[in-house]
C-alpha cells in the first residue's frame, strides 16, 4: 500500500514540475559535456555535493543563521510596529494625514540608497542591515494594514460598542481581527522583501551571512559555492512562504473568501 502511494506522489510531482526537471537535466548534461566552462556553470551534482560539504565542514549553518537572525528581527520589528501603526492611521485622521503622504512618497524611493547612511550610523555589523530590513518591510505592512483597517464596517464597531466595548478596546478587539487578511497580505510582501534585502545588503557590505558567502565565493571563483548560497536562500524563501500560507489558512479559516490552495502567485 505504502509503496503505491509513494509512487503516485512521485508521479504527481514529476508531472507538475516536468519543465523544471527537464531544465535541471539539461543543465547537468551541458555542464558535464564541457560545452560551457564548468567554472561558469557547475553541474548540478557538484553543487549538491558542495552543499553537503559546506553544511558539515564549512560554515553554511553559521552564515545562514546570521542572515536569518537579521532578517527575522527586522521583519518582526516591522510587523510589531507596522500593524498597530497601520490600524491607528486608519482610525485617526490626524495621524493619517501626516503619515500617508510620507508613505506614498517613500514608496518609490529605492531604499537601498539609505544603506550607506545606515552604515555611517551603525557600522557594518547587524544593526545597519536590521534597520534597512525594518524600513523596507514596514512599508508594505503598514500600507496593507492601513488599507484593510480603513474599510472596517462601521456597523461592526457600533455593535461592539452597544455591547459595552470601550472605544480604545474596539481597535484591538474588532478592527484588528477584521484587518487580519490584509495584514497577512502585507506580511507576505514584507517576507519577500526582507529576504531580498538581507541578501543584497550582505552582498554589498558584510563579513558574514549568506550574501557574504556568495560574494566571497565569487572572488575566488568557487561557483559551486555561489550556487549553494543561492540555493539556500531560495530554499528558505520557499520554506517560509509555505509555512506562511499554512499559517494563513489556519488563521483565516473563518474568512468567506478563503484562499484554499497554495499559490505561487
Amino acid at each position, binding site marked *: 500500500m505504502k509503496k503505491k502511494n509513494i509512487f503516485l506522489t512521485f508521479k504527481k510531482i514529476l508531472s507538475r514540475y516536468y519543465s523544471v526537471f527537464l531544465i535541471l537535466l539539461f543543465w547537468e548534461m551541458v555542464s558535464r559535456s564541457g560545452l560551457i566552462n564548468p567554472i561558469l556553470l557547475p553541474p548540478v551534482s557538484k553543487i549538491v555535493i558542495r552543499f553537503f560539504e559546506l553544511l558539515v565542514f564549512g560554515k553554511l549553518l553559521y552564515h545562514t543563521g546570521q542572515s536569518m537572525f537579521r532578517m527575522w528581527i527586522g521583519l518582526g520589528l516591522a510587523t510589531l510596529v507596522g500593524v498597530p501603526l497601520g490600524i491607528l492611521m486608519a482610525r485617526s485622521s490626524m495621524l493619517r494625514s501626516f503619515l500617508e503622504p510620507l508613505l506614498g512618497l517613500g514608496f518609490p524611493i529605492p531604499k537601498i540608497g539609505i544603506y550607506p547612511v545606515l552604515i555611517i550610523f551603525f557600522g557594518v555589523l547587524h544593526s545597519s542591515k536590521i534597520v534597512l530590513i525594518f524600513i523596507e518591510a514596514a512599508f508594505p505592512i503598514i500600507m496593507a494594514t492601513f488599507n484593510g483597517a480603513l474599510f472596517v464596517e462601521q456597523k461592526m464597531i*457600533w*455593535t461592539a460598542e*452597544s*455591547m459595552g466595548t470601550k472605544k480604545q478596546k474596539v481597535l484591538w478587539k474588532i478592527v484588528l481581527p*477584521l484587518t487580519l487578511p490584509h495584514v497577512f497580505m502585507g506580511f507576505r510582501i514584507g517576507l519577500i522583501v526582507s529576504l531580498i534585502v538581507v541578501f543584497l545588503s550582505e552582498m554589498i557590505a558584510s563579513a558574514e551571512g549568506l550574501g557574504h558567502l556568495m560574494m566571497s565565493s565569487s572572488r575566488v571563483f568557487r561557483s559551486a559555492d555561489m550556487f549553494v548560497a543561492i540555493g539556500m536562500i531560495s530554499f528558505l524563501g520557499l520554506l517560509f512562504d509555505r509555512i506562511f500560507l499554512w499559517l494563513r489558512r489556519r488563521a483565516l479559516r*473563518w*474568512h468567506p473568501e478563503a484562499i484554499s490552495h497554495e499559490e505561487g502567485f
Partner: protein
Amino acid sequence: MTKLVVQKVSKTYKSGKEGKEVEALEGVDLEIKEGEFFSIIGPSGCGKSTLLYIIGGFIPPSNGAILVNGKGVTSPGIDRGIVFQEFALFPWKTVIQNILYGLEQRKMVKNERVKIAEKYIEMTGLRGMENLYPKELSGGMKQRVAIARTLACDPEILLMDEPFGSLDAQTRVFMQDELLRIWDETRKTVLFVTHSIEEAVHLSDRVAIFSHRPGKIKEILLIDIPRPRIREEEVSRSQYIKLINYLWKAVEREAKGFF
C-alpha cells in the same frame, strides 16, 4: 411605564463636496412604553434609521435628547442593543463566541456565561450550530445569531434596523414569527424600523408613520389585533385589512409628497 423618551430630536449634517446642509430629522417626539413592540415605517431615506442610530448613541443629535428609564443617554451602551440588517456578526468568531462576546464584558464565572449563551441558543433555535462560523450560515440563521447575541446582553431596549431586509421573502415571513415567539418569552421593549407595512402590522403594538425628509412622526397608529397573532387567521380580519390599507395610503402620500 415609559421606557424610552425621544425629545425634540433633530439632526442636520453636511453632505457632499459642497458641504450642503441636509436636514435628516426635524423635532421628533416619541414615547415608548415598557414591553411594547413599536415599529416605525416610512418612505425610503426619510431618516428612520438615522433616528435609530441616534437612540443607539452612535451618532449625536443636533438637538434634543434621548431618555431611557428617565436618564439621558449620549453614547452607545449595553442598555440599548442593536440588530442590523447586515447582521454585523463577527466573522472570526463562531456562533457561540459571537453570543458570548457581550457576556464577556460582564463580570461572571465562565460557566455562568456559557449557560446564559446556551439559553439564548436554545431560544433562537440555534442548537447544534454553536461551533459554526458565520460564513457557514444562511441569512436567517445569521439573523438569529444577531438577535441571540443582543438579547444575551439583556438590554433595556432592543433596536432593530430592518433586520429582515436582506432575507428572501419566505425566510422573512418565517423569521417574523420566530421573532414574535422569542419576544414573547422575554417581552423586551422593541423599536423596530421597517419598510414593510405588513411586517409592521403583524409584529407591533403601535406603528409610527414617518414623514419624508426632514423626518418627523406624522401619526401613530394602535394595532389592536389581539395576540398571539396567527397569520392565517389574522389576514382575514377586517381590522387587519383596514390598518394595512390606511398605512399604505399614508406612506404613499408621504413618498409622493417628497417628489
